[in-house]
């Protein structure tokens, strides 16, 4: 119906119709324009701030009154030994945390495979519902929970450990500088494991059930079915997510580390994102800008590399 009436109008008045189309072309653009302006202001305009990396900029003094110093702030990263040591320490933390993240990205896959082996439907559902909750609270809240549970004098964890005789007296776990990388990745998965598994659970549910039935008829064991049917079914999803996390290798985000950082663990917890914040907070704006500029460039390169890899391996791009 609709299509035929469209034909009719076009038949009657082609000139009018095409003029209206021309008008619509710009009308649509002007309707979108306010939103495009907002996009420009909040996403593109900040790039102009990169020039601060080339000045001895001090907050409060206009840029026109500050001396242009060229690549000074980039050079200090390699020429000033204390600065170099600091940058290397931060890079080490970043690489360590991101690598741990990449290695443990199989956790949600294992979670999903094991969960789908559970026969009782309500138990499966309960586990899935409750384990996704932590994903929806902020890192401040995660830290607040940790603060109460691990508190030295009245936290339940220290209490129980002392009662069991595992430790002699209360230990301040959150202020300890040892094993920060491991505890950070542990908190990360406490928050994200249930949520991360959802995609894989859906992928498992999407696998053709006949495959499993056929394997059963052939007498395949549980392990063989997982190995030959389930895992191959999950690999495409896993691969895409892995590539995306390679693209984000230098972007750990800062909320988690910002929440958990304190004077004791600062050396081991400072990843690039947090480091930029900390030096900016110490009022060294140009250096912070230089670091975040390099970081942006590296992360764009990594993203393109991951995308190229994806095109080669899967014939499909991820962005």
């Amino acid at each position, binding site marked *: 119906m*609709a*299509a035929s009436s*469209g034909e009719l*109008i076009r038949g009657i008045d082609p000139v009018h119709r095409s003029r209206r189309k021309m008008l619509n072309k710009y009308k*649509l*653009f002007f*309707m*979108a324009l306010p*939103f*495009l302006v*907002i*996009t420009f*202001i*909040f*996403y*593109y305009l*900040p*790039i*102009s*701030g990169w020039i*601060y990396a080339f000045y001895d900029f001090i907050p409060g003094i206009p840029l026109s009154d500050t001396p242009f110093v060229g690549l000074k702030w980039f050079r200090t990263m390699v020429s000033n030994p204390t600065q170099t040591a600091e940058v290397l320490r931060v890079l080490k933390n970043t690489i360590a945390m991101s690598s741990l993240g990449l290695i443990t990205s199989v956790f949600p896959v294992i979670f999903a495979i*094991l969960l789908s*082996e*559970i026969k009782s439907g309500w*138990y499966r559902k309960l*586990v899935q519902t409750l384990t*996704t*909750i932590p994903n*929806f*609270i*902020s890192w*401040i*809240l995660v830290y*607040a929970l940790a*603060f*109460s*549970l691990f*508190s030295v004098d*009245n936290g*339940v964890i220290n*209490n129980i450990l002392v009662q069991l005789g595992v430790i002699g007296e209360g230990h301040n776990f959150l202020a300890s500088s040892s094993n920060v990388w491991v505890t950070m990745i542990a908190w990360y998965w*406490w928050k994200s494991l249930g949520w991360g598994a959802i995609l894989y659970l*859906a992928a498992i549910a999407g696998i053709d059930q006949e495959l499993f039935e056929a394997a059963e008829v052939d007498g395949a064991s*549980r392990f063989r079915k997982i190995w030959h049917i389930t895992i191959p079914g999950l690999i495409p*999803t896993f691969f*895409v997510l892995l590539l*995306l996390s390679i*693209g984000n290798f230098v972007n750990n985000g*800062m909320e988690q580390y*910002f929440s958990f950082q304190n004077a004791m663990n600062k050396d081991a917890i400072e990843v690039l994102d947090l480091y*930029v914040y900390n030096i*900016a907070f110490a009022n060294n*704006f140009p250096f*912070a*800008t230089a670091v975040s*500029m390099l*970081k*942006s460039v590296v992360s764009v390169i990594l*993203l393109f590399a991951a995308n190229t890899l994806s095109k080669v391996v899967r014939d499909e791009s991820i*962005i």
Partner: protein
Amino acid sequence: MRKKRKPGDVVFQGLIYLLFGVFTLSCIYPFYYLFINTISSNDLSAGGYIKYYPRNIHFDNYFKVLRISGLSHAALVSIYRTVVGTLLTVGASAFLGYLFTKKEMWGRKIWYRSVVVTMYFSAGLIPWYITMHNLHLTNNYLAYILPTIITPFNIILIKTFVEAIPPSLEESASMDGAGYTRVFWSIIVPLTTPILATITIFSAVNQWNSFIDTAFLMTDTKYFTLQFLLWRYLNESSSLAALIRNSPDMAASIQNMQTPTSVRMTVTMIVVLPILIVYPFFQRYFVKGIMIGAVKG
């Protein structure tokens, strides 16, 4: 075809039941622990005696923290940014997502790409901060709601969703002389309700949970949100103790005196409760959100 169960099978099943049981417990016990501690008598809680169930139940803590100066105002700021910020981003994403499905738009491809590509790069914290500062968006309520208006991921979701709507529906409306805005309100919005609900709930949770922007942009306490106040309470025990001393607490019995611990726990509970309350009702939207996103991604 019921098979006889092998002993290995039973052990395996038992093990994974146990494993998931332990992990699930670890996910919800912290919330439970905090809750029972905030409603138990404060001296028992301070002594670390409340582990499994509440004792000497009272709700004074909740009434008292609201009297701490700045806290109820911070709650209002949090509610404001959650409600207004969410409405703006959902409205803008829906409208722009719809406009981007119109092939006749001038330069559509370039505009769409330039919005989407912002998901993959950022200028960095400091350039962003300087821009916000130059726009006078430091110590300004607008800073909470303007930058999130354009959320590329939401726009992709809506565009994909609208493209799946049969074009005949829209065409018949435009034959009747309805303009783009009319079509948007009378056809697109009703048909995209499921995806709009999904992005609403995601944006609301994100807004409620945000705190980095406060840490960066706000120095005046009147712009502080609940999340940020909580962060301050966690990191500045001394200022918290001072706040408690200043708040009128004459009527309190000795065992329910406010302590820094009781305040921290109660504020944590207040910040987390909205999420815990909303979560069961909207769980399916959360799941739907990640699914649609995955199909696209």
